[in-house]
């Protein structure tokens, strides 16, 4: 399943540094994501995975290092430019992050508010919402409130929201946390289906080994703020390094 079509990565991180007070969370992290690739970044809780992915979309500002998405450096971007770039990136948040005060439909329409005109999407909101919900198999939930949904359904709606602008890059922040193994598997299957359908490139942050096994083309192990080791699932499982072994048991 290895296909490195383009030589240029769609997303590249070079020596990213980020610290909170005296705690240096990221200390020169590097990453390259190629088109159509599913890259998994693994690490313990608090290892800086979430910080890294938030730096990618400009929710946090790195202390130093560059982040290049489709050839543009986002660390120097003005907010307006950043907004435009963000339309090309889908983001699935750890806890789904659905807006509690809005229905599923309103949740899905939310990204369309500002971006629709800019992207010259001619389709009506309702069609886009329906299409996105069909993709995740939840068409009947359109008028429900997030509080009425189960955890798995929430995750699906959140995925539908991340996909509504048909982004080329999707960032998954712990897509399977808080879900039972069966639902987690369903979500992983859904991620694969969508990746095939829209041929997106995905960056997945997780500590779920199963998830990494099923979906990854390549895995980066993030330990002590740097890429400790890179390789395919098979390569890492066979590694003799005690830290890596601890991960894959």
């Amino acid at each position, binding site marked *: 399943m290895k296909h490195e079509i383009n030589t240029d990565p769609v997303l590249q991180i070079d020596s990213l540094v980020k610290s909170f007070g005296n705690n240096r969370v990221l200390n020169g992290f590097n990453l390259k994501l190629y088109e159509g690739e599913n890259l998994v970044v693994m690490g313990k809780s608090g290892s800086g995975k979430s910080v890294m992915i938030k730096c990618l979309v400009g929710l946090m500002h790195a202390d130093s290092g560059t982040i290049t998405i489709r050839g543009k450096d986002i660390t120097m971007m003005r907010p307006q430019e950043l907004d435009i770039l963000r339309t090309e990136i889908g983001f699935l948040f750890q806890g789904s992050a659905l807006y509690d005060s809005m*229905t599923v*439909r*309103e949740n899905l329409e939310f990204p369309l508010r500002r971006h629709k005109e800019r992207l010259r999407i001619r389709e009506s909101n309702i069609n886009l919402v329906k299409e996105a919900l069909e993709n995740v198999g939840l068409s009947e939930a359109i*008028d429900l409130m997030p509080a009425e949904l189960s955890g798995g359904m929430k995750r699906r709606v959140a995925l539908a929201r991340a996909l509504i602008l048909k982004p080329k890059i999707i960032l998954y922040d712990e897509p399977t946390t808080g879900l039972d193994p069966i639902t987690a598997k369903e979500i992983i299957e859904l991620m694969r289906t969508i990746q095939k359908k829209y041929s997106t490139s995905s960056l997945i942050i997780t500590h779920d080994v199963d998830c990494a096994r099923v979906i990854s083309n390549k895995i980066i192990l993030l330990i002590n703020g740097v890429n400790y080791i890179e390789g395919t699932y098979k390569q890492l499982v066979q590694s003799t390094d005690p830290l890596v072994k601890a991960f894959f048991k």
Partner: protein
Amino acid sequence: MSGIKNSSSQNFRLGVFVVLGTLILISALYFIGKRQNLFSNTITLYAEFKNLNGLQLGNNVRHAGINVGVVNKILMINDSRIVVGMSIQEDLSQHIKQNAIATIGSDGLVGNMLINIIPQSGDGTIVKSGDTIRTYSRIGADDMLTTLNVTNENAALLTADLLKLTTKILNGKGTLGMLINDSLVAKDLKKTMNNLKLASAQASQVLRETNAAFKTIQSNNSVINTIAFDTVSGTQIKNLLANLDESSMKIKQMSTDLTNYFEQLKDADGVLNYLTNDASVVRSIDSTLFYIKEGTYKFNQSMEALQHNFLLRGYFKKQERLKEKKE
């Protein structure tokens, strides 16, 4: 669909909420403003006082008991002249005549001060903006009431003394016999009698005049009248009039009695022997006469004061004119 409907009904309710709230605020402002005559057309009247007794800007102005405006200007010209500007609602000002009188009063015992505009009888032109109306200071009335009060007390005292005396004489218990033997005393007595007669005549004359004056005042629609309707001063004056009436009656009665008695004395010699040698009677008669004199003098004085009081000036002038006509 439900989302849109929901939000439009929410917006409707929000609109009702906001409009209602704003309406309450605006109407409250309107009513407050209306109370202060900010929106109706007003005219300005002026009045000059010596003493404002704590009148303030914003105090009410009443005409015949109706709130017609507020005090909107207080200007001190010198230590005894203070000009008060009143803004009066134009529609209510049509009933205020130029001869109306402004006084400072209070709204109940603990109430705010206010200006009463008191309508006067007689024809007068309607006030227009900028007019100054006459005022009447309550302090003048107070002075007058005090003088009248003293007079009244003196008269009452005098009456009581005379009554005692006449009772004694009528009962035949006295010292008149001694008076007859002593020519000096007899002379004194005669003189005294004459004086008494004179005094009584004077007293009754004065009382008649006062009575007449007050009667005219009462029937006349003048300031005294309104005082009488007003408060404490009204009852005071009424009592005073009643007392004066009574005393004058008693004095008259007594002097008639005395005259009759002395005439009887002259005719019937025998009776004189019954009179005792008590000199105290003479002294008491003497002092009585003194009181009567003093009373009359004071009465005259107070009549003078009344004559100088501008309230009654009109009446006395009228009297003088009548006299002149007769002559």
